[in-house]
């Protein structure tokens, strides 16, 4: 069973994402901020990380950079409620740090599940 780490400071969103992903048969580990997320990533065998960008303690961008330095191949989906100037601002940074898949909140559930499935599909190469 693929294990997904959900990082979001909003408990309601974590719960919603957990239920959504568990229904699809994924295992879920939760973290409420970047510090907890790094600890959870080290403690578990994580196949995919879905992280919010704006969080207390450790911001999503910082978390992405640290995870990438821990494991260059880590699979990450970044989700953001948006910056003040442009909803894409933070996600653009996430992409610069190697996050290929990004979503703006509110996220379309179907699209998210498709990307998750695609990223966790066995590599052809």
């Amino acid at each position: 069973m693929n294990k997904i780490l959900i990082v979001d400071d909003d408990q309601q969103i974590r719960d919603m994402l957990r239920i959504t992903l568990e229904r699809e048969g994924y295992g879920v580990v939760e973290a409420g901020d970047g510090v907890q997320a790094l600890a959870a990533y080290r403690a578990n065998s994580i196949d995919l990380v879905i992280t919010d960008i704006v969080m207390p303690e450790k911001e999503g961008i910082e978390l992405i950079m640290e995870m990438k330095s821990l494991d260059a191949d880590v699979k990450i989906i970044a989700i953001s409620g948006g910056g003040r100037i442009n909803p894409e601002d933070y996600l653009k940074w996430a992409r610069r740090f190697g996050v290929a898949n990004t979503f703006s909140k509110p996220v379309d559930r179907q699209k998210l599940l498709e990307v998750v499935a695609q990223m966790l599909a066995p590599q052809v190469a």
Partner: protein
Amino acid sequence: MQNLSSVLDCFTDRIYAVDEAGLVVFHNAAAANCAAGNQNPLVGLPFEKVLPGFGRLRAVVASVEALSPQDQVEMPLQSTLLDQVGKSVPVEVRIERVAWNAATTDIVICRDTTSRQILTKENQRLVTAISHAADAIVITDAQGQIQYVNPAFCAMTGHTRASVLGTNPRLLKSGHQDAEFYRQMWQTLTQGEVWSGRLVNRGKDGELFTEDTTISPVIDECGCITHFVAAKRDVTREVGLKERLHEAQKLEAVGTLAGGIAHDFNNILYALLGYADLALDDIPSEHPAHTPLQEIARAGNRAATLVAKMLAFGRRTDGCREVVSVAELLGGGLDLVRATLPATIQIETQQNGPDGRVMVDANQIHQVLLNLCTNAQYAMDGAPGVLRIVVDQVDAEQERSGALKDLQPGDWVRIRVIDSGRGIAPAVLDRIFEPYFTTRKGHEGTGLGLATVHGIVADHGGHVSVESEPGVGTEFTILLPLRTAVAPQAPEPVSTGSAAKGAQGHVLVIDDEPMVLNVLEKAITRFGYQVTGFAGGIEALETFRAQPDRFDVVVTDQSMPNITGFEIGTQMMSIRPGLPVVLITGHSDERFHEQACAAGIRYHLLKPISMKELGEVLEELTSVTTAV
């Protein structure tokens, strides 16, 4: 005689009696006063010495009287009298021929007109001033009938002087002011007081204009109003500018508000929509709660669209871009700036070299100027200062030696905003373009001004940089790509591939290794193409996305950090189908080659690539007139 002489001495006019020989036989005290205190200095003197040209004047009078004894010569005649020190005195002259001690004698009365001439000149000066005044001046009589208008009035209203004289100023009425407005105005005026206010009036062509008007009643010595004088200033432009400024500020406020709530609001919406989806999974469609749940999801989606719209409104991304001259663009922006900054800040503009054309959303660039200039004002701490705006053109080579090393080749227009403020401390200089970063205290700053500047300039494919010296001032530099080669206003060709240009196409080159990039750029330039090089795939993609029709061929390295050449190529082709992409790889992999071909990337070159081969491939790709 003695009595008569005493009477004549009471007159301030100079009175002389001149005999037929032209000699003075009598004069009064006023005439004597001219004569340096001598008792009777003039008696016996030729009158010509007192009033040069007297003989001619007398001849005129005599000949007219001879021709027509009933007619009086039109008196007075203007002449010039010499006083005892030889100074000219302008006078009005009356000559009466009488019998004086039985001899024919001319009584000459000279009235000094010096003070009247001064008054006349003063009047002429005033009339000249009024007729050249930039403000419109209208003079009416007490009944409101127009008696005078100056040329500025005609320019402002479109009416000619002849057409308005004798009419009433109500011919300008636009209907924007109600009867009560005019009633109060007349009440003030008829009480003898000055009225000032703003009116919207209508010109002859039907166009409305806004004027600031002051009307003063003219009151005579008896306390009666004889005239009204109105001075009107056309403030249509100022009012328009203020409205635009207000609009800009309102937009910023909306943008800030939307931005402030967007993040939290989107989180809430996400939870709401996510749970609605989960509930919909569990509740069968025949259940009565199913439709209400769907409605909740629909409402949530509407709210999400609204937030996105508010953000877009704040950013004004809906503005359209067009090719405009830089001088025109800045002219409009500076009007806005001048309307905002206090008069203590002197704004100097300088254009070096020729004017260029840029493709911009003028409103956004005006916002950039406004933000930079209001920042400069803040940096000047309310003290008088100078704000300089210097415009010139630079090419990439020039700029590469400076701070902006990652410029693409091509010509740029450089706009520098230089203030004499307190400068920016080196410690914060690197952070000033960050959103929310502000050095202002409390609620004075939003921390969005320079972030907006950065965002807008970047969206236009430009660059913004800053240099500052504490205590001396700050210089912001904006570079915008010039569009000199493009015919102004020409529609962009809707290209699905490269045009037949031979070696005249534009090649986009991407390689993360600076040395390789440099060699590729040089080689392709030598082939005769225009080249734009990028060391990063993300930047290349962003540039391409902004101007997909700018490039004819894309040459990219495959293996790069962040994004592969294959991903760049496929993403660009999804934006512009049929775009020729050349992929350069370090290893031969048949499967990868097949994959690339399947994705539409037909050219796959192996490192080390031969320049001859690259040249042939580019020639083939740029000579193809139609795309796949």
